């Protein structure tokens, strides 16, 4: 960083950075602080009284089978989405990397789901999976599956997993494609001279070289499955049937806004913040490593 070449003004930089800092403080830092404060309080739903209860909200959460269930639901959901979205994107990008002519065409037609709002993705797939009129439901019926996401928890889970995966493939595809294209061509040429075919070259050369990108994408996919799928779940299943598709984020919303259990909702927020903080550090490390000053 060029440290001695700078403007000398004193107040201008502070004026420049103030709007950003104000918004950050009012809408991010202050509410986050509130959440931490509230997580140690027990408050009645109408805000008339509150008392300090220490870690009680947290202890209660971890003894609450609903919360543990939501934790496992989230893990199951996130692992499935990350796995499916990454594997299918990797396959597509591996084949796309081999194409010389028409690669822009394929890229164009594969990236657009990135722009689709999660709730839109939810409503599209809800239509396909509707037990009475949906085309996929009909197909499954012919295969002998008694498709009923309204009553059957695991059917509902599959429905939100597929909608969320569909939405995420394009993002992973772009990153995998960029990573594969940066693999040195000379390595592939050398291996080809040694007589290894495209599949062997992919497994032994490209795959190890794109592992940092894969790790980065794994983290991004987890963050996506944790937070950005709220709209998909809200539109498709409302966390049901039962609590079978209620993830941690959905539960924060549900307990806070619908159930008005403020202390518990705040404690859940704090736990989520810790998770996000950890994941962000990993992402940041990745971005920073790629930057050469």
């Amino acid at each position: 960083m060029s440290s001695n070449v700078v403007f000398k003004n004193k107040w201008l930089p502070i004026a420049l950075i103030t709007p950003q800092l104000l918004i950050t403080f009012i809408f991010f830092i202050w509410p986050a602080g509130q959440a931490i404060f509230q997580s140690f309080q027990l408050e009645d739903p109408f805000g008339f009284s509150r008392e300090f209860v220490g870690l009680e909200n947290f202890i209660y959460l971890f003894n609450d089978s609903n919360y543990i269930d939501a934790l496992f639901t989230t893990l199951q959901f996130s692992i499935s989405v990350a796995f499916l979205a990454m594997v299918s994107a990797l396959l597509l990008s591996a084949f796309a990397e081999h194409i010389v002519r028409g690669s822009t065409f394929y890229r164009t037609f594969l990236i657009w789901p990135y722009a689709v709002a999660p709730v839109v993705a939810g409503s599209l797939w809800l239509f396909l999976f509707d037990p009475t009129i949906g085309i996929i439901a009909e197909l499954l019926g012919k295969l002998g599956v008694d498709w009923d996401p309204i009553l059957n928890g695991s059917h509902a889970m599959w429905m939100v997993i597929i909608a969320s995966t569909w939405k995420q493939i394009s993002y992973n595809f772009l990153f995998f494609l960029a990573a594969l294209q940066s693999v040195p061509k000379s390595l592939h040429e050398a291996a080809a001279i040694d007589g290894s075919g495209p599949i062997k070259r992919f497994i032994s050369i490209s795959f190890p070289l794109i592992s940092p990108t894969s790790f980065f994408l794994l983290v991004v996919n987890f963050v996506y499955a944790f937070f950005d799928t709220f709209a998909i779940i809200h539109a498709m299943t409302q966390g049901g049937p039962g609590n079978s598709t209620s993830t941690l984020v959905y539960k924060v919303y549900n307990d806070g806004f619908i159930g008005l259990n403020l202390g518990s909702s705040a404690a859940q927020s704090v736990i989520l913040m810790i998770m996000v903080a950890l994941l962000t550090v990993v992402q940041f490390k990745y971005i920073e490593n790629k930057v050469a000053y």
Partner: protein
Amino acid sequence: MVQRSPLFTLFCHVILILGIIAVAFPIWIAIVATTHENSAFVTGSPLWFGDLGFDVFRDLLSNESTFNNSTLPISHMLLNSLIMALTITVGKLSISILSAYAVVFFRFPGRMFAFWIIFFTLMLPVEVRIMPTFEVITNLNMLNSFSGLTIPLIASATATFLFRQFFLTIPRELFEAARIDGAGPVRFFIDILLPLSRTNIAALFVITFIYGWNQYLWPLLITTDLQYYTIVMGIKQMLGVVDGVVEWNKIMATTLIAMLPPVIVVISMQKVFVKGLVDPEK
């Protein structure tokens, strides 16, 4: 160049086309569904166009159309979405580029502290601080207003960080030459920095526009007044009919309308979007 067998290349094309078909399948069904009467779905959803044509779209976009429990015309929701997305985009880019400029080209007390405070916000998506942020908005009287819809989403660690990374790569000679020519900080920013940042601004514009357009949880929390409904929220409203028929042909049409603007932005600005997404640090 590695030898390519034509058979393998053909195989690649086949797989990719199958991939595209799989990804586009929901859209195809949605388009087809808009051309059928709602009653046609009773026997299962059709695979080919019906005889309604674009009537559903015309009904939806004309202002008289009201259906289910929504009394707000689609065109109004589209306008709300557009206002929201553009305000967030312009706001986000302006305040991020200004604060990145301050952090990189000036020295002032608390500079790095300020930068880290901003960076910290990356860690706090709306989803994890729902209740307290809602309280802040209530106390500021920002419920049901465009300022409430947009201002809290304007702060962005990502945009600030990307601008900072880009500014750090600008050669110091350029900066020195500008100063010798007598350019002050404002001059330097407008005449040199902004033109140089064109591609970065464009890339962030695409990403932020989509982010703003697709916002769901935030408007859901802070708008109760139909006047402020965005198109993305409108869809959920239509899906949640308590009694009566779900009007799938209208929902699918609305869904298609809602996804059209961001998809057009991504496809038409593909190059700059990919650049902004995949190698933001360059």
